[in-house]
């Protein structure tokens, strides 16, 4: 990038880095299932940079839309602008997802464990919770059957837990019913096993998963240390594979985010 006085380079915010790090997970040609918010910024940024042939499915029923105004929700008519198909939930969740078209999905959650199991349902005992969250939505369906999923989360000790209070969304070691014993995802999904959680991106770091499906620290965002991340993780984190620092947003990425993708300041306030 240019060495001239830059508008953004030294003043990016955590959300900008999250969007950029998420965008970098998109491979050119991916069929991406995206939810409201940061995932929309990430897929659009990827399409405008390294992945022009990536396409986006929004859960409410639009396939490969080409929005000219940023949608505020996956149900928004803006998602469907110049889409190749509009349909409904049967098409997105079965015609696209269950049939195996989806390469990548961005998801979120309130709690995560070292196997990538995510809770979006309750804190405490489900039958007498201390707090009810939004509920699973399509998170577990998408996480079940997309080839790769990326979670975008807040890094806090109470959110990165040894065991989540409720498994809303399946990671790498999950419960086999009716007994509920923990086994590898492959054993539950059989021939429906297409992949699983690839990365977790937080405000402090990027995490990935080893062959056994256990989370490890991959890169640490500028301004944070491995110790910061460990201090904000509730389980014993593998820090032996750290590659270095997460690359910060470039001037070009920041211009695209603020001037082209979200000029109205809907998510990038």
């Amino acid at each position, binding site marked *: 990038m240019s060495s001239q006085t830059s508008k953004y380079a030294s003043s990016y915010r955590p959300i900008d880095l999250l969007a950029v790090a998420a965008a970098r997970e998109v491979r050119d040609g991916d069929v991406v299932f995206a939810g*409201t*918010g940061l995932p929309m910024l990430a897929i659009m940024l990827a399409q405008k940079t390294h992945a022009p042939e990536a396409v986006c499915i929004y*859960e*409410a*029923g*639009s396939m490969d839309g080409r929005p000219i*105004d940023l949608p*505020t*929700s*996956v*149900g*928004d*008519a*803006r998602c*469907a*602008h110049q889409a190749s198909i*509009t*349909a*409904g*939930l*049967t098409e997105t*969740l*079965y015609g696209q*997802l*269950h049939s195996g078209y989806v390469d990548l999905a961005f998801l979120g959650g309130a709690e995560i464990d070292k196997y990538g199991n995510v809770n979006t*349902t309750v804190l405490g005992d*489900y039958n007498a*919770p201390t*707090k*009810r*969250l*939004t*509920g*699973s*939505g*399509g998170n*577990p*369906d998408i996480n*079940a*059957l997309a080839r790769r999923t990326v979670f975008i989360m807040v890094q806090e000790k109470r959110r990165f837990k040894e065991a989540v209070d*409720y*498994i*809303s*969304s*399946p990671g790498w070691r*999950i*419960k*086999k*019913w*009716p007994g509920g014993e923990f086994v590898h995802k492959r054993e*539950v*999904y*059989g*021939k*429906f096993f297409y992949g699983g959680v690839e990365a977790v991106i937080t405000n402090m770091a990027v995490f990935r998963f080893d062959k056994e499906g256990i989370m490890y620290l991959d890169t640490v965002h500028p301004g944070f240390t491995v110790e910061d991340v460990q201090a904000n993780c509730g389980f014993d984190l593998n820090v032996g594979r750290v590659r270095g620092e997460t690359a910060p947003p470039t001037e070009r990425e920041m211009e695209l985010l603020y001037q082209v993708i979200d*000029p*109205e300041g*809907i*998510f990038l*306030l």
Partner: protein
Amino acid sequence: MGKPKVISVKEAAGLIKDGDFISFSGFTIWRRPMAMVYELVRQQKKNLHLLEVNGGTHSEILVGAGCIRIWESCWSGHELYGKLGQMVAARHVSGEMIIEDYSHGHMVARLLAGAYGLPFFPTAEAMGTDLLNPEYDSLARAGLRDGSNPKIPVKKYDIARDPFFGKGELLLMPAANPDWAIVYASQVGDEGTVRVNVQTYADAELIKAADQVIVLAEEVVPESYLRRDPEKNIAAGYAIDYLVELPWGAHPTGSQGYYDVDADFIRSSYQASKSQASFDRWADQWIFGVKDHNDYLEKLGITHLESLRANTALGYSTRIKRGTR
């Protein structure tokens, strides 16, 4: 069968009896039959069993007003305008409402089975999760899976092995066949043909799954107009029992091609839902404090409504301020 009967929204809500099993069209904060939701609250319905692919502002209002006894779904919130469905959440914590959690894909599977006259629909979605934990089957815990209510399946789900291709285990999701589908649609023909704009959500499935169907139409149009492009329609008139014509009937949720989501209105209802007392004040102001839908629209005001009106070329409003810039 035959053409739908044209009635008022007040009459439509009057058809719903306490304890009935209902479901709504739409997706989160889009195309919800809000005028009917408000009228159900005004008529103080009780003990309703609500099953839906996902919740939203409409279900929060019904739950907050104490109309719902059983809620089967997967998510409740107001999207960008209020992350959490606080009324559902409060009742999960207090134990005042029976909540049966499925995934979004499970709910769609249940409506698909219901729509196609099948007892169940197989799915590999959301396996390995606590959604399937038998200890968390709330309807069973409430003693309601004893077969005495034909609309409540005797099991939350079952597991079966693929008998044909050896693909392993799958979930079988029981059909959902509500007593009533309460649907908001963009355009309905004078003989009942239904069209919705842009994404169809699970509206067509719901119409087929329900025993009786009430449609609130943004506008009623000549049948011949809808029959010029039959591929754009989602249901035939003989599938619709009652028809209500009600412009702005989905407000504050959005209706593609007609109006955008009223973000400020939803935000204020979300803020109000942080406590029962403030929700009750909100309901007094916007539901009990207006006599009917027209009175509600008068209170909103034409300038406000016009700001939401969709651009006819784009299908959404280009005049609302959506962000901070």
